[in-house]
């Protein structure tokens, strides 16, 4: 608590003393470590302690952002002056009205003390337990095990004061045996929820001990595991679920609200407060998270906003601002797809000839407004015949519209899973997508890997 007050006081003093018309200070601290293993040997074990102070200043309608990881008071004053100077040289942004005003923030638990128990030795022990389990099955294991503590603090000169401490842990695992591989991953704020044995069992379950066969590309019924579904949902979030894409006319939602765009079984939303996900109480402007429904029973409903995109439409922010300056838009980062009534077993049993996909790899956009993406399958792709999983198959390339695919969803699993890649490039702020498994009656595979 003392640290919380001292950080808040530091930032409050900074924004109060600023000569800019409005000032916002964001502090993101990180104390993390990551243990990486390959071919059943730890080859990388790293630890990091860092912080990032982001100052956004407003001079009239001119805005500038300066970032530093040196937060001694002399250097902070210097960069505040630098930010004001930067703002003053540019033309005004007539659309800008104001930084957000304070709104009460819900109190939620996002930090678990036990994260501190994961010393280097402890982590190596856990990895060794896992390696023992995979070796017993004759498999080589590769993966990463990371834990971290992150603090996010947002203060602005209008009175916003937001502080939250997060713990996070992620573990992903690939097991390999000859030409086959299997995948499993885990992410949580509470480190006590990690079940290494279950994780290993899940990945090992994809090793069938049969030679992968090659099948022709084409349209097949598919069962997509939550990992693959979460990839599709993330692309929808990036391409169309946010206000900037809509306002710039590049969202697939343009002129389509109220229209049934995907199957009525599909409901997709974002909710930073939902306990099933990795909770985040407020955004990078200190605005509390609101639940935003994008598709409700297949019908296009709404998009997420930060304060700038909300002001353009005379609306309130939904609490989806990202780290400034964010030119990509208020992309939702706590996505959920509603579960159904089915199970993986029932989905497989319902297919005469189809494909089971564990996860996708290196997906990328082909046609943004139709949400057409391409990518490869990876680490557990199987042929389904007569209601049973048969052979593993060589990885396939898909090129498919996510919207078209979701309009052909016929079964959705009751069980959902939080999926996360962990960190994305350099800034640690772990969030996740909660997705079910789905069955799609027709999914376009456009190519095949020949290895």
């Amino acid at each position, binding site marked *: 608590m003392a640290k919380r007050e001292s950080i808040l006081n530091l930032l409050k003093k900074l924004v109060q003393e600023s000569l800019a018309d409005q000032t916002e200070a964001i502090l993101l601290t990180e104390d993390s470590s990551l243990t990486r293993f390959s071919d059943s040997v730890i080859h990388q074990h790293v630890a990091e302690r860092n912080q990032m102070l982001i100052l956004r200043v407003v001079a009239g309608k001119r805005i500038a952002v300066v970032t530093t990881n040196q937060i001694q008071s002399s250097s902070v004053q210097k*960069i505040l002056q630098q930010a004001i100077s930067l703002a003053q040289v540019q033309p005004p942004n007539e659309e800008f009205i104001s930084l957000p005003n304070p709104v009460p923030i819900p109190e939620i638990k996002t930090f678990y003390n036990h994260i501190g128990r994961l010393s280097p030795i402890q982590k190596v022990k856990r990895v060794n337990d896992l390696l023992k389990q995979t070796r017993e099955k004759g498999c080589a294991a590769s993966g990463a095990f990371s834990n971290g503590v992150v603090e996010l603090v947002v203060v602005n000169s209008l009175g916003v004061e937001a502080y939250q401490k997060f713990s996070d842990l992620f573990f992903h695992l690939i097991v390999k045996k000859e030409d086959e591989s299997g995948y499993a991953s885990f992410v949580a704020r509470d480190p006590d929820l990690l079940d290494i044995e279950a994780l290993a069992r899940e990945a090992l379950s994809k090793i069938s001990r049969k030679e992968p066969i090659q099948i022709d590309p084409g349209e097949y019924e598919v069962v997509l595991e939550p990992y693959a579904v979460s990839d599709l949902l993330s692309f929808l979030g990036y391409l169309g679920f946010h206000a900037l894409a809509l306002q710039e006319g590049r969202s697939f939602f343009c002129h389509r609200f109220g229209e049934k765009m995907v199957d009525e079984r599909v409901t997709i939303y974002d909710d930073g407060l939902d306990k099933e996900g990795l909770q985040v109480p407020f955004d990078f402007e200190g605005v509390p998270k609101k639940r935003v429904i994008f598709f409700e029973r297949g019908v296009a409903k709404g998009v997420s906003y930060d304060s700038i995109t909300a002001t353009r439409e005379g609306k309130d922010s939904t609490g989806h601002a990202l780290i400034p300056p964010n030119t990509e838009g208020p992309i939702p980062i706590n996505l959920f797809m509603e579960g159904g009534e089915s199970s993986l077993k029932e989905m497989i049993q319902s297919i005469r000839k189809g494909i089971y996909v564990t996860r996708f790899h290196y997906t990328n956009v082909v046609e943004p407004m139709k949400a057409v993406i391409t990518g490869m399958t990876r680490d557990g792709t199987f042929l389904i015949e007569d209601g049973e999983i048969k052979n593993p198959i060589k990885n396939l390339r898909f090129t498919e519209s996510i919207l078209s695919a979701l309009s052909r969803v016929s079964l959705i699993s009751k069980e959902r899973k939080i999926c996360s890649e962990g960190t994305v490039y350099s800034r640690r702020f772990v969030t996740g997508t909660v997705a079910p498994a789905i069955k799609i009656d027709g999914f376009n595979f456009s190519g095949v890997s020949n290895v």
Partner: protein
Amino acid sequence: MKDLTQNIIDLAKMKKLDYTDIRIVRRQNEEIEVKNGRVEALTRDEDFGFGIRVLSNGAWGFACSSKVTKKEMEAVFGKALKIARASLRTQRNGIHYPTVPSVIDRYTTPYSIDPFEVALETKLNLLLQVNEILQKNKKIKISEAFMSTYQTEKIFASTDGSFIEQKIIECGAGISASAIEGDEIQVRSYPNSFRGNFATKGYEWIEKLDLIGHAERVAEEASQLLKAKPCPSKITTLILDSSQLALQIHESIGHPIELDRILGTETSYAGTSFIKPEMVGHFKYGSELVNIVADATFPGGLGTFGYDDEGVKAQRTPIITNGILVNLLTSRETAHHLGRESNGTMRADGWNRIPLIRMTNINLEPGEWTLEGMIADTEEGLLLSTNRSWSIDDQRINFQFETEIGWEIKNGKIGEMIKNPTYTGITPTFWNACDAIANQNHWQMWGTPNCGKGEPGQVAHVGHGASPARFRKVQVGVMKG
């Protein structure tokens, strides 16, 4: 700073560790983005800290901090050592890490105009002016202009006795116009997509780009694309322009030849490679026209530097000679798998990351053709320009690319414009189908400032030189709407 680094090196020697290095890195970055006539981003970023890498009894440990003091360095050194000792529990064989001759040197990027000294007003005016030209075309709904400048100051010290100071200056700029009609977006960019073209040069590089001179054409082509023919679906002859070929080299040659990736250390994230060490010396990667070098010494390349982050001098290394794979990108730890020494490709994304094998400037050597001659020699095919999207599998063998624009080639002449051009292929099949490469006059360096690898994630700045080239029997048109 030398006192601080020497203190850690002395401590490491006292503890008789196998090896230790320390890097102190200060990075400054300025980003400007103008969108639809508004300054959407104007940022300055400064990042400072140090990282210590220790090798103890054959196991690695790394720790880092943004607090650059003697006391913190000693604490971080202790943490790195603790991590290394813990990691030892899973080691099967110790790490082979050869010593290298000590180096005391200083390297600075050659440049004429310091991009950080150019008045902000000058930069903003250029981007605003370009934006205004793009916006004059009424079909353009999103007009963007970008400029980025970077300065990285690095100090490297190791128990080999090396002490190396480097100052790397980089900058780049670009423009982009998006025409939108109904449910269709068409984009054109200059000089390259995804924020432009980048180099280790001063502001003189941005002045030479002539953004203003290309703005009207870029906007016009984006609007014309809305009415262009869709890409046909067929197997045909493909001519790739230099910028698209640069990304093709990056994804289907640059990544597969990283020896750490080949040895499996990226399995859990980015994947592995279809290349194996034993293929070096005989594998026919491409046709005999294909010659690839990894050249960290090329003046102005975005992957140009003095020394890598293991203290190994920048080098020019043949990778593919007359179509045969002859070398890989290596490090001090991995090169012995080829019976060779490191070719100096280990780079870290700042003080808080460990070095990984990264591309330098992976260049396709020029051929003999003129582009005009190549087109005149092509009876039927497509000419594709400027990357729009990319995807490749975890072994870097099945790829699919989309470019912003294409043109039909019929009877040796450029025909109609085509939109949403896509092509797909298998890496060695594709490179073996290369039957013409344009000459030095068409050859150009491209900077890729967004190459991702590693966990925690790292972004590297790398370069690719290429001139347009022709490939036979390529599947084009894989779109599904």
